[in-house]
């Protein structure tokens, strides 16, 4: 620790702290424009000038000067104030005084400092900038006339997002913040630059002119897209969510959000939201009262109680823990059926079967904080970045700042591939289990396996013939990864799971866990396996037991049951199987066949359109509760706006049905959480109030065991391409289609082809192509690039039109032919 004196106060700080950090630590505010706690110090704005007694004669920038023992610092002498006023005058020389029309007014550091330092006059005169304003980008508007050259946008884009969309161009008075070749901004639209811009140079277009910062009501909540569990602050006004507000002190991610969290909130206020219950009368869905709709539902479910096997229920892992718990209690307890599931079986088997078999718990042994504490990250699928972008930022930070080694095993290249020192092993689609088995064998062969692990002999026997050739990669690559992984002090495997990843099931989780257990990379900080559930509460749904146990049917079997008439009543809470489950034609036929289907959802989705009763549900912004993130962190979700129209939260819906059927009745969702804390062992001792803003990571007691995983041999079909499905960066599930932001950037389904394949098929970027499999055909737009290897075609699964589940049937790999329309 280093001791110094700031404004007469004695302070002791870490030796790598700056004067700015030291002042902040003792509550002294030093004004600054170019600083963000996530970024490296820059020292560009010169507002943080301070006086150091040992360095008399000049003023020192506090943000870039490290502390030294015995330093005596003054932060507000007359000379300092005069210097800061001069800095502001010089900044305001070029900066337009257009605060009335600038969206940043009220939340502008320059405006606030101008007011605080009473800069009412300017001694200097110069012409203002006359840069052309970039209105072309659908999400980010750039007015470089207002830029004060703090460089925060370029730094965050480079240091954290690792995209590098901005740079300083020109020098001196001509300097400005530019893009490549000074063209329009062309990036991944995460909006990080907008969030850190201290003035109004970068603005969010969806929020443009909507409201003033001071008029917004701010509510801290949790993002409802992926399983990362990013906290966000919703800015609301007049019952509408207008924006998300950046707070560098929020969450493990320090306020960092991806494009969905930043620009995808509009689904909450969408005009397409359901505002009243609908009942099918004479073949058409017609508006009805809640009493009618609930009476219809409860009478059907009451009838189903006598034949529980004929009732099934599907829930989305977007519901809160409380709603999911109540869902389980209603169907498993009151109605008496075990036919309940969330998402299509395979999407969470890695946790419910894989993790349970390998670790003894249905959760990841690692948490998100381990990403940056590791020495080596082994990422399965390059698009871990696309499914969970903020974890991608954590990976970026770890690799670039801490020198963490990054190894990727994937069926295509992605953004992570381009990180410094990253090595990507591209394998044939569907070969993940074979690859992990080959890695395990290599670890054993190289004598790197730890001694005395449970199940070692069985694993040795199971992987005896697992070779690199079977995994479709070179033996050298396998040996190198195995050696690096085993010899790293701390190594972590990152495995995304979800509906777009049919092969990411229990076997893959076992295979990946085997590598971690075999090398002793489990049960310690910075090591283990991070199984990343796709949706915001995937982990919570598993914790609440929303999957079939015993003789219950899983989602795929429920669909079959609907088709063959065994399932007569189906309750769907927020799921959209028509678009997200494999084999769309089969799902549609099954749902049309089921006698009675209830759907509670925000929108009249493709599934809701087939229902007999549709119940309008609330979004995450209209209810309170808790979500559990993929790192086992239980966090508070808070109600920010009143319900839209007559919508009710799933808690209210399920509570009313439960009460009508003679089951449990709760006065509020908080009572359910109390019951969860009492009945779910991992949640023992938690209270909603005790979660506060930061949430709580529940502990896991591991009983690690090696579980052999059988690799399925994918049989390539001659002349056909292997279809890889997955997530597009801008979307998550099928809900993001109702957010304007994601749809501005990625509105349509597409198929991504390698340039060589595209040339052979005479397909060019933007062409309409027909992708045909044994299950069906779908027309999508072609994208051509070098990201996917030859022989592989990638397509995201989120879209209703051109939906890729028309051609998939749940197999690890689907072989398709692609032809220009």
């Amino acid at each position: 620790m280093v001791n110094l004196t700031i404004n007469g106060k004695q302070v002791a700080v870490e030796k790598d702290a700056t004067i700015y950090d030291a002042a902040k630590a003792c509550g002294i505010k030093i004004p600054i424009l170019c600083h963000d706690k996530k970024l490296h110090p820059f020292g560009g704005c010169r507002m943080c000038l301070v006086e150091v007694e040992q360095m008399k004669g000049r003023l020192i920038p506090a943000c870039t000067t490290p502390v030294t023992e015995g330093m005596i610092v003054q932060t507000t002498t007359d000379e300092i104030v005069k210097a800061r006023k001069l800095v502001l005058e010089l900044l305001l020389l070029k900066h337009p005084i257009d605060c009335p029309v600038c969206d940043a007014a009220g939340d502008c550091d320059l405006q606030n400092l101008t007011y605080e330092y009473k800069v009412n006059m300017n001694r200097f005169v110069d012409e203002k900038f006359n840069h052309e304003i970039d209105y072309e980008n659908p999400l980010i508007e750039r007015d470089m006339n207002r830029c004060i050259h703090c460089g925060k946008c370029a730094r965050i884009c480079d240091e954290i997002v690792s995209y590098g969309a901005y740079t300083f161009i020109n020098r001196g008075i001509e300097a400005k913040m530019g893009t490549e070749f000074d063209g329009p901004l062309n990036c991944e639209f995460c909006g990080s630059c907008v969030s850190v811009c201290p003035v109004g140079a970068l603005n969010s277009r969806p929020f443009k002119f909507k409201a003033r910062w001071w008029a917004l009501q701010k509510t801290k909540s949790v993002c409802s897209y992926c399983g990362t569990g990013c906290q966000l602050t919703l800015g609301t006004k007049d019952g509408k969510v207008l924006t998300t507000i950046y707070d560098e002190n929020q969450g493990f991610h320090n306020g960092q959000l991806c494009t969905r969290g930043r620009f995808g909130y509009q689904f909450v206020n969408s005009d397409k939201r359901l505002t009243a219950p609908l009942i099918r009368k004479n073949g058409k869905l017609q508006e009805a009262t809640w009493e009618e709709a609930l009476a219809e539902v409860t009478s059907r479910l009451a009838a189903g109680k006598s034949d529980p096997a004929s009732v099934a229920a599907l829930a989305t892992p977007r519901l809160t823990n409380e709603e999911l718990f109540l869902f389980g209690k209603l169907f498993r307890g009151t109605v008496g059926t075990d036919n309940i599931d969330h998402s299509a079986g395979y999407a969470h088997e890695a946790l419910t079967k894989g993790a349970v078999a390998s670790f003894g718990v249905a959760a990841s042994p690692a948490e998100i904080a381990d990403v940056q504490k590791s020495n080596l990250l082994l990422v399965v699928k390059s698009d871990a970045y696309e499914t969970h972008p903020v974890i991608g930022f954590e990976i970026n930070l770890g690799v670039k700042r801490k020198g963490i080694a990054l190894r990727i095993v994937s069926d295509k290249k992605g953004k992570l591939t381009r990180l410094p020192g990253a090595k990507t092993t591209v394998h044939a689609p569907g070969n993940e289990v074979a690859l992990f088995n080959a890695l395990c064998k290599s670890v054993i062969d190289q004598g790197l396996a730890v001694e005395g692990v449970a199940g070692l002999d069985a694993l040795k026997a199971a992987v005896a013939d697992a070779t690199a050739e079977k995994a479709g990669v070179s033996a050298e690559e396998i040996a190198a990864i195995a050696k690096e992984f085993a010899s790293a002090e701390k190594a972590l495997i990152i495995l995304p799971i979800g509906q777009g990843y049919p092969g990411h099931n229990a076997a893959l989780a076992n295979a990946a866990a085997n590598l971690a257990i075999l090398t002793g990379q489990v049960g310690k900080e910075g090591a283990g396996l991070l199984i990343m559930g796709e949706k915001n509460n995937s982990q919570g749904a598993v914790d609440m037991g929303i999957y079939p146990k015993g003789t219950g049917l899983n989602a795929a079997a429920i669909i079959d049951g609907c088709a063959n008439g065994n399932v007569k009543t189906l309750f769907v809470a927020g799921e959209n199987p028509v678009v997200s489950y494999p084999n769309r034609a089969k799902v549609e036929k099954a749902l049309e066949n089921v006698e009675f289907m209830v759907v509670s959802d925000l929108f009249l989705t493709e599934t809701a359109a087939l229902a007999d009763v549709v119940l309008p549900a609330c979004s995450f912004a209209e209810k309170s509760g808790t979500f559990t993130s993929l790192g086992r962190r239980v966090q508070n979700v808070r109600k920010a706006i009143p319900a839209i129209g007559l919508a009710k939260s799933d808690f209210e819906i399920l509570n009313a049905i439960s009460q009508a059927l003679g089951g449990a009745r709760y006065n509020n969702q908080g009572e359910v959480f109390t019951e969860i804390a009492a009945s779910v062992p991992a949640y023992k001792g938690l209270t909603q109030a005790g979660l506060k803003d930061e949430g709580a990571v529940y502990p896991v007691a591991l009983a690690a065991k090696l579980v052999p995983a059988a690799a399925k041999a994918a049989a390539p079909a001659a002349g056909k391409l292997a279809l890889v499905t997955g997530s597009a960066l801008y979307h998550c599930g099928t809900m993001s289609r109702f957010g304007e932001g994601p749809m501005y950037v990625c509105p349509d389904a597409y198929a991504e082809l390698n340039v060589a394949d595209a040339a052979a098929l005479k397909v060019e970027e933007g062409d309409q192509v027909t992708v045909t499999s044994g299950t069906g055909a779908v027309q999508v737009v072609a994208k051509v690039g070098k990201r996917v290897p030859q022989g592989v075609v990638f397509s995201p699964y989120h879209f209703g039109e051109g939906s890729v589940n028309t051609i998939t049937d749940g197999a690890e790999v689907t072989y398709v032919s692609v032809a220009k329309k």
Partner: protein
Amino acid sequence: MIMPLIKGLQITISHMFKKPVTLQYPTERPDVKPGFRGLHALNVSHDKAKCVACYLCPTVCPAKCITVEAGEDANHDKYAAKYEIDMLRCIFCGYCVEACPVDAIRMTEQFELANYTRADFTYTKDRLLEKK
């Protein structure tokens, strides 16, 4: 007893020779003094309302009677797509005029604001612009 009575009558009688203060409204109109705070008006410049929808007037309005919604015109400039004053709530404090950074709103001398329906007390942008 007598003297106060006489003094009172003196005052009464003196008023008989003064100009009466009562106006025969509506045939006679009052002379509105400078600074009078009557109905609001949106100032116009170059055939457009000067208002840039900065939201300062609804922010300072203690009665919360002003509703502004900004829009983006063809040149990407900000303008008041909606500007409404609920005159039933307005307390004529004039803070909106003081807060306006672009001199877009003023208060006129119009004081005849009686109406028959509640809706008629909502002054939309068009109604406020008319009185230029």
